[in-house]
């Protein structure tokens, strides 16, 4: 019956789309055409469930940005293959076959780097038709083994990133729906690769051997037919194969639990870097023996030879991604791809050389320092997985042990039963989350750190309440031998210190992300100043508690006040904070004074008041009461009466310089801290000079204005005085 009706309707015969039981397709085009004429402008035919707003989200067919089904060249992957888009072998001519294989390898490297940088697998690595149909390449040992190891590598990298579970970069990275990542036998990829490498090594030896020996080796079939080029091509292939092999080893070694494979990984990393150097240097040979490439756009080429690779089509599997087509992306150039991998390997090497410091403070310093080089997602995911495994630090230190050590408690405390208390368990989880967040990218990190402040505050309150319930008021308990009391007291103090540290990171990251406009620097430095004061207070108390415990064990006699005063030195960590406090205070007052005396270059913001902007920036801190009793009004009070004349008399920058100098002697074996202190000194010096200049000359020359730039330090600005 459908067939009878089909003859009447104008649906082409090839359509096998059923219209349902007992129904047929009726052509309604003429009806629609006439009905449309009767509609008013803007009138719609719709049902009761129609919602204009929802209808706006409809995908528009034939719009290239919304319709991923638009036919480009081929209707499907199979059609592309049938039309020779990915031939196996690539060419009957062995030389051309080798050239093209190398081009494919290079383009895959560029695609892989592009993927790592934040694009989808489908558009990058899996735009390779050879990878989409794994079985087709089995007759071509070189291509087959290479594809296998690429798939295995991608799978390993996806595993690391998805295990880190930070869900940044929109999960684009781990999306692999419908892509053949689980090739049959890919785990044996290395043995296949080794076999191919062995063959090519012998071919290399054969072509380099003197002619007398060549007769013996003649049973060895050469790689390709042009004897002059044999050595060059063998070498080019070998370094590429070896790079892949060692890179795969790096990934598997680094995944070994509790950091057991780090030393081995470093060896593989070193080999990878040297093979990448060989790969880079092979481009001269490959370009010269390639057929007819122009010099135009050579920098953008995705292969060493400059030729277009065979067998790639990004549009073929775009249907596999979401209904909407992915944004058009540009594959990184081959040169940039190599640079990316060199940087990635260097970042991984830093992770592998980490000493697995059991002190939490050491871990935090390491992560903050590591992040300064702006490592990419893959490196950061590896770091996170090294730090946090099975809910423990490095997979072996329980969080409670880590916390008791950080809170300067004696070793015996780490096994105390109180760790089973629900609040200590929660605290442990909070520390784990903090470590994970510190490994993410700056924007994500700042957002999460800000939200976390509330959690840290709440856990403090909960711990304090639990303590009071057990032992009464915190202050009324004398420092006695009861370990449980000690644990609570130390940890409470440590929790406060951590909270302020996170608050300071939150504020500082705002500079890195350029979230503050110059007219807001004054309030930001002021907030940094109040937070750092609290942080140094808590750090100092914590270290004093440590000294107390140490002293009581050693000395039996009462110390004379003189001895105590002489022996007591401000701990270096506190000194470090103090010079930053002076710098922050100095900048706050200088900015306030300049603003009060109208000498600052600043753009007017007509949209909201200073108070509104204060709340917008510090809302999360204010809500968590970090610190307590701090508000916009306290900020105004501190800065309304700032004047250049008073600042010159009491120069915070000079204090900063003095303290920084003093601190340097304590950090002589910490190059990062020394570098930081040197930068602080430079900022202090330049600002001190600027302050003097502007206060003396400013009154006489009204065109003199100050602007602030980050020329010596990433977040402490240097004043630049110039005529406007």
């Amino acid at each position, binding site marked *: *019956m459908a067939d009878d*009706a089909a003859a*009447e*309707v*104008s*649906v*082409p015969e*090839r*359509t*096998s*789309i059923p*219209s*349902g039981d*007992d*129904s*047929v*397709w*009726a*052509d*309604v*085009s*003429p*009806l*629609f*055409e*006439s*009905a*449309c004429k*009767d*509609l*008013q*402008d*803007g*009138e*719609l*035919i*719709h*049902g009761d469930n*129609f919602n204009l707003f*929802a*209808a706006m*989200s*409809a*995908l*528009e*067919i*034939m719009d290239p940005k919304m319709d991923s*089904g*638009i*036919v480009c060249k081929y*209707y*499907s992957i*199979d*059609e592309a293959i*049938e039309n020779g888009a990915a031939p196996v072998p690539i060419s009957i001519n062995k030389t051309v076959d080798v050239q093209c294989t190398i081009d494919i390898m290079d383009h895959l490297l560029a695609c892989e780097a592009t993927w790592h940088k934040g694009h989808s697998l489908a558009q990058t690595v899996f735009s390779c038709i050879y990878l989409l149909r794994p079985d087709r390449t089995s007759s071509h040992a070189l291509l087959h083994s290479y594809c296998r190891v690429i798939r295995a590598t991608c799978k390993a990298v996806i595993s690391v990133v998805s295990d880190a579970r930070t869900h940044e970069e929109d999960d684009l990275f781990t999306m692999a729906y419908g892509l053949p990542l689980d090739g049959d036998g890919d785990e044996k990829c290395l043995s296949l690769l080794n076999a191919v490498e062995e063959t090519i090594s012998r071919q290399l030896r054969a072509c380099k051997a003197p002619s007398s020996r060549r007769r013996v080796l003649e049973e060895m079939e050469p790689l390709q037919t042009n004897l002059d080029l044999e050595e060059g091509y063998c070498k080019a292939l070998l370094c590429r194969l070896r790079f892949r092999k060692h890179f795969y080893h790096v990934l598997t070694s680094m995944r070994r639990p509790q950091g057991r494979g780090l030393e081995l990984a470093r060896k593989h990393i070193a080999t990878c870097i040297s093979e990448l150097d060989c790969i880079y240097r092979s481009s001269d040979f490959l370009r010269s023996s390639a057929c007819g490439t122009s010099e135009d756009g050579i920098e953008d080429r995705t292969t060493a030879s400059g030729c277009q690779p065979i067998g790639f089509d990004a549009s073929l599997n775009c*249907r596999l991604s979401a*209904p909407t087509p992915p944004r058009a992306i540009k594959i990184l150039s081959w040169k940039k791809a190599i640079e990316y991998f060199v940087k990635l390997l260097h970042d991984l090497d830093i992770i592998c050389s980490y000493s697995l410091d059991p002190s939490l403070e050491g871990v935090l310093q390491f992560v903050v320092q590591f992040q300064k080089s702006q490592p990419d997602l893959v490196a950061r995911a590896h770091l996170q997985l090294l730090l946090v495994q099975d809910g423990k630090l490095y997979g072996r230190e329980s969080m409670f042990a880590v916390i008791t050590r950080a809170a300067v408690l004696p070793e015996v405390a780490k096994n105390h039963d109180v760790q089973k208390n629900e609040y200590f368990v929660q605290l442990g989880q909070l520390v784990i989350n903090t470590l994970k967040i510190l490994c993410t990218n700056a924007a994500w990190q700042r957002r999460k750190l800000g939200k976390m402040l509330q959690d840290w505050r709440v856990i403090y309150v909960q711990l304090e309440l639990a303590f009071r319930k057990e032992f009464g008021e915190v202050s009324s308990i004398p420092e006695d031998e009861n370990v449980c009391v000690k644990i609570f007291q130390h940890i409470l103090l440590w929790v406060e210190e951590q909270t302020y540290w996170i608050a300071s990171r939150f504020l500082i990251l705002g500079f890195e992300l350029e979230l503050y406009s110059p007219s807001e620097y004054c309030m930001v430095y002021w907030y940094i100043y109040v937070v750092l004061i609290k942080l140094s207070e808590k750090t100092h108390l914590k270290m004093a508690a440590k000294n107390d415990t140490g002293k009581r064990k050693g000395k039996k006699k009462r110390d004379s006040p003189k001895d105590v005063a002489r022996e007591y030195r401000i701990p270096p960590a506190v000194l470090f904070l103090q010079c930053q406090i002076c710098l922050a205070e100095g900048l706050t007052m200088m900015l306030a004074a300049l603003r009060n005396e109208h000498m600052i270059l600043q753009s007017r913001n007509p949209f909201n008041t200073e108070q509104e902007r204060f709340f917008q920036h510090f809302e999360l801190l204010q809500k968590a009461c970090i610190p307590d009793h701090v508000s916009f009004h306290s900020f105004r009070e501190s800065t309304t009466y700032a004047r250049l004349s008073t600042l010159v008399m009491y120069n915070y920058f000079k204090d900063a310089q003095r303290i920084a100098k003093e601190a340097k002697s304590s950090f002589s074996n910490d190059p990062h801290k020394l570098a930081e202190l040197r930068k602080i000194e430079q900022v202090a010096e330049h600002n001190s000079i600027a302050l003097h200049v502007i206060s003396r000359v400013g009154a006489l020359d009204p065109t003199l204005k100050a602007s602030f730039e980050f020329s010596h330090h990433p977040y402490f600005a240097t004043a630049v005085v110039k005529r406007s």
Partner: protein
Amino acid sequence: MELEAEKTLIQAESSDGPNSNSSDLVARVRKLLFRQMLVGIRDGRFFLGTFHCMDKQGNIILQDAVEYHSTRRSSTSPMEQRCLGLILLPSSCRSSCHVGCYIEEQLSLLKL
């Protein structure tokens, strides 16, 4: 009887405010809402979905649409399908438009 049916339809529509002067043709199209509709477009693809909306220009919105596309350029190739959800088919790219209906209805639909 048909006239009465049409009158009731028109009266029913008059409660929609600006649609009070909708013609018989528009009413008939309105009756097709929520039916299965098969729209063919110029590049050879077909979209099957529930008829959701149409405007004066003849642009159509289908709900829970499925795209049918052939895997080869030739006409006798198997079709693959994928789900798209809510889609808009501009009249400019539309090459055919069919509604699933019973054979008896077919004649009344075709007649203008």
